[in-house]
């Protein structure tokens, strides 16, 4: 039997369901000190006085650190992890590194920035003492609206506050717009949101001598290690970063944070275990936010709804930093035209600094923003021409005979965007059938609407991922990888893959990841990439290990390796199943020293390693339909049903893929209807608890119908897979907005600003009536 493709229940669940899992807040080391931060109450201010004397006297306090005290010892992080790769020259990218300060030194640049760290023997005492730290501020004018061009400068190294910019020109959009039969223009906004994983951030560091062990709730342990070492000016080998159990990330934990550096520093300074666990209020103001893009888009189209040109200009509000300007902003360009053949395309994107928390990629990373603009345009074209929105989409879809279709522009890895997917029209027709579209058009019910959305998704991005395999003394296959799973079920899916390669059960495979001590190089789990990239690395190292096993067994059995096969923990002679040796015996024979029975020239051990560098991304796609019920008197929207069809190549575990899609779709509902990180005009965050930042609950779950399109397996990786983790939240904003517009027909409502709260829906109704 093969395990790939089966609905295998997860191996990783038992500790999690019994409450015996260990997340950072659950780890306890003898003598651990706890940290509380003093954070800036101002968006932009000069620190005129800073007095820690009283706090230092407080009971249980061990130390208080401020920016001036760590000057020269802990360097700010200057992140240029997304320098433009070769191939991206035509986009004319201009990227300034993002600066992330560890503790404010002289100036604070956003509400929530850490100003001082108070270390005490308990969190309660640390928090009490933090209130005794006296900070005087002189408020300064703040950059709040990124559209304004006369804002105060946020960082000197970023002229005009434009931290990153790029432009793409495909064909001649200007000429096409000038000569178009019809044109429209919209302002479309994706609001500032936050990923809000249920576990906040947290770091524990413990130092023995020169070496520090760091447990952090992060998606990128290797990068955290490297950044800590860089900031502290110490060799990477002195820092080991691992993730214990982790309560979600969704992109928010794909950044290196000041606290990770500082807690490590404190542990080295004090030679004690030191821990900080973020509370939810801190999380909402001092963990990365996302999206916050305002687009001005124009489209040219024909009488039948075919779009000939799109021209878009957008500004992404970076806050004090946009550490991943290509992911957050350039992804918008490379996913903008979705499943559509639009010959002329121009886009100009800018990431502009303001005095707010920094802006990170959040599940979908630029794609939900792009999809919202594109499919709002599609729907607006239909509204403008009085056509059925489904017809407009249909007429713009890339036909199968045009695949593999080039979008005639580079992806963010520098390679040309060429879709390796097909079946767009068939998927779209199937969506209409599943959602009962024709029936709804024929006899619409009052207040009920159906809206449609589409997306494409480049998945499995580089730079690389690692896989290492070896046997253990029990004859099990032990797999190490540089990914960092935290809910995606990789232990199970990767065990399924390896189980098939070795003819074992998933239970006989041991999977470990997310620990920099495992391997010298690793990247992490983000960007719908782990199954693709770690999977490829693991399958390649599986092949190498199989060859090694056969070579050693050949030595033991005095047979040629080609005549052997591996399965069920044994190596057997092909066609003579009674002749064989066990993997345990192979392990023993691989040992160094006198017991070794290795072929001439082979090193001892069974370890095989492979680093997979993807040729470029592999493209998934999907379509989403939303059914909503709208109350035109109150503006309240209820999403009744979401239907999604998605292509993620070969499916390893349908149960897990369904779970990813369901969770992603509901995050999409949240971002469409409820969630917003609000800053007021003075730069004060207004959503600082879950009472103000509204997450979808079980009461908001629509009926969800999904189908995995059994498309051709990807040819861009050996497993034939495509990523799926981010797919869910991409299309719902457009689908739901279009559904509300449909529900309110014959009013010609426009809904272009997320979230679509009842007051906004009411205002749109009023505007359409006027």
């Amino acid at each position, binding site marked *: 039997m093969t395990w790939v493709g089966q609905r295998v229940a997860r191996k990783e669940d038992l500790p999690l*369901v019994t409450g015996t899992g260990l997340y950072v*807040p659950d780890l306890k080391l003898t003598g651990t000190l706890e940290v509380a931060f003093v954070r800036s109450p101002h968006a932009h201010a000069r620190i005129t006085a800073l007095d820690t004397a009283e706090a230092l006297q407080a009971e249980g306090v061990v130390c208080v650190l401020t920016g001036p005290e760590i000057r020269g010892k802990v360097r700010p992080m200057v992140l240029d992890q997304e320098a433009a790769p070769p191939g991206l020259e035509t986009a004319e990218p201009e990227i300034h590194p993002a600066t992330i300060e560890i503790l404010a030194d002289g100036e604070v640049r956003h509400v929530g920035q850490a100003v001082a760290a108070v270390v005490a023997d308990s969190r309660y005492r640390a928090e009490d003492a933090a209130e005794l730290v006296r900070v005087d501020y002189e408020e300064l004018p703040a950059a709040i609206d990124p559209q304004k061009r006369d804002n105060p400068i946020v960082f000197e190294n970023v002229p005009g506050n434009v931290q990153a910019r790029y432009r793409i020109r495909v064909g001649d959009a200007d000429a096409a717009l000038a000569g178009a039969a019809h044109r429209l223009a919209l302002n479309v906004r994706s609001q500032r949101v936050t990923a809000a994983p249920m576990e906040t951030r947290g770091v524990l560091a413990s130092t023995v001598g020169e070496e520090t062990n760091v447990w952090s709730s992060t998606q990128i342990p290797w990068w955290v290690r490297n950044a800590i070492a860089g900031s502290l000016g110490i060799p990477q080998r002195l820092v080991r970063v691992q993730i214990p159990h982790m309560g979600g990330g969704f992109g928010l934990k794909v950044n290196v944070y000041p606290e990770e550096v500082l807690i490590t520093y404190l542990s080295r300074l004090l030679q004690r275990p030191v821990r900080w666990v973020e509370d939810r209020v801190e999380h909402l103001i001092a963990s990365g936010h996302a999206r916050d893009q305002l687009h001005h888009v124009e489209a040219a189209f024909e009488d039948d709804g075919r779009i000939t040109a799109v021209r878009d200009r957008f500004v992404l509000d970076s806050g004090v930093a946009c550490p991943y300007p290509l992911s957050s902003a350039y992804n918008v360009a490379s996913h903008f035209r979705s499943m559509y053949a639009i010959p002329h395309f121009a886009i100009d994107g800018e990431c502009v600094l303001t005095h707010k928390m920094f802006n990170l990629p959040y599940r979908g990373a630029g794609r939900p923003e792009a999809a919202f603009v594109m499919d709002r345009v599609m729907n607006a074209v239909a509204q403008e021409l009085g056509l059925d929105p489904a017809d407009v989409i249909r007429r713009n879809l890339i036909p199968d005979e045009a695949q593999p279709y080039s979008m005639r522009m580079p992806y963010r890895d520098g390679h040309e965007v060429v879709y390796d997917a097909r079946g767009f029209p068939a998927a779209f027709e199937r969506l209409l059938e599943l959602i009962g579209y024709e029936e709804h058009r024929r006899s619409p019910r009052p207040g009920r609407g159906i809206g449609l959305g589409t997306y494409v998704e480049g998945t499995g991005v580089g730079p690389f991922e690692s896989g290492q395999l070896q046997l253990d003394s029990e004859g099990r296959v032990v797999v190490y990888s540089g990914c960092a799973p935290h809910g995606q079920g990789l232990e199970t899916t990767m065990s399924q893959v390896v189980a098939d390669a070795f003819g074992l059960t998933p239970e006989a495979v041991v999977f470990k990841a997310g620990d920099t001590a495992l391997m010298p190089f690793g990247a992490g789990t983000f960007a719908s990439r782990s199954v693709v990239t770690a999977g490829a690395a693991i399958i390649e190292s599986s092949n190498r290990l199989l060859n090694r096993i056969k070579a050693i067994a050949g030595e033991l059995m005095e047979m040629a390796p080609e005549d052997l096969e591996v399965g069920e923990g044994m190596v057997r002679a092909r066609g003579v199943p009674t002749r064989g040796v066990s993997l345990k015996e192979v392990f023993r024979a691989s040992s160094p020293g006198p017991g070794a029975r290795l072929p001439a020239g082979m090193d001892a051990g069974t370890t095989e390693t492979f680093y997979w560098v993807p040729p470029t991304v592999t493209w998934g796609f999907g379509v989403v339909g939303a059914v909503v019920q709208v109350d035109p008197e109150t503006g309240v929207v209820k999403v009744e049903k979401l239907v999604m069809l998605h292509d993620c190549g070969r499916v390893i575990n349908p149960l897990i893929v369904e779970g990813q899609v*369901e969770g992603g779709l509901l995050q999409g509902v949240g971002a469409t209807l409820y969630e917003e990180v609000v800053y007021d005009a003075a730069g004060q965050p207004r959503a600082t608890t879950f009472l103000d930042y509204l997450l979808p609950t079980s009461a908001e779950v629509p009926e969800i119908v999904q189908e995995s399109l059994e498309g051709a397996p990807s040819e861009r990786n050996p497993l034939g897979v495509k990523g799926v983790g981010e797919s869910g939240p991409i299309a719902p904003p457009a689908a739901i907005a279009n559904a509300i517009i449909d529900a309110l027909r014959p009013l010609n409502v426009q809904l272009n600003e997320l979230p679509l709260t009842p007051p906004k829906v009411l205002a749109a109704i009023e505007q359409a009536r006027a």
Partner: protein
Amino acid sequence: MTLADFLRGELGLTGTHLGCEHGVCGACTVLIDGASARSCLTLAVQAAGHEVTTIEGLGTPENPHPLMRAFSEMHGLQCGFCTPGFIVSAFEYLREHPQPNREEMRRDLSGNICRCTGYVKIFASIERAAELMSS
């Protein structure tokens, strides 16, 4: 000191999680004399003289509660952070409604937030647990 901090810190029962510490997310749900309560908003002293049941009291890795088995079987969890609180709430729900139905569950369990699963498989897990418990 809150009940949550007491359970987690003094007693080392870290299965009770803290997702918000302001009474919204339900990750810290425990039973006090059988009724669900938010341990982040309850003071430890308020629990004096009462029976407190945490996730650890419902089952163990050696002997998991049917809800625990069902959550795994039906993929009712991803990161698992909300899971103990959810299972405690679901335990109370199933006690009151041995035959779960989705409309009720949607309403009665809306005090527990899960950011990963979209709740669909949590509902399925609870239905499966009801089956396991009745057989």
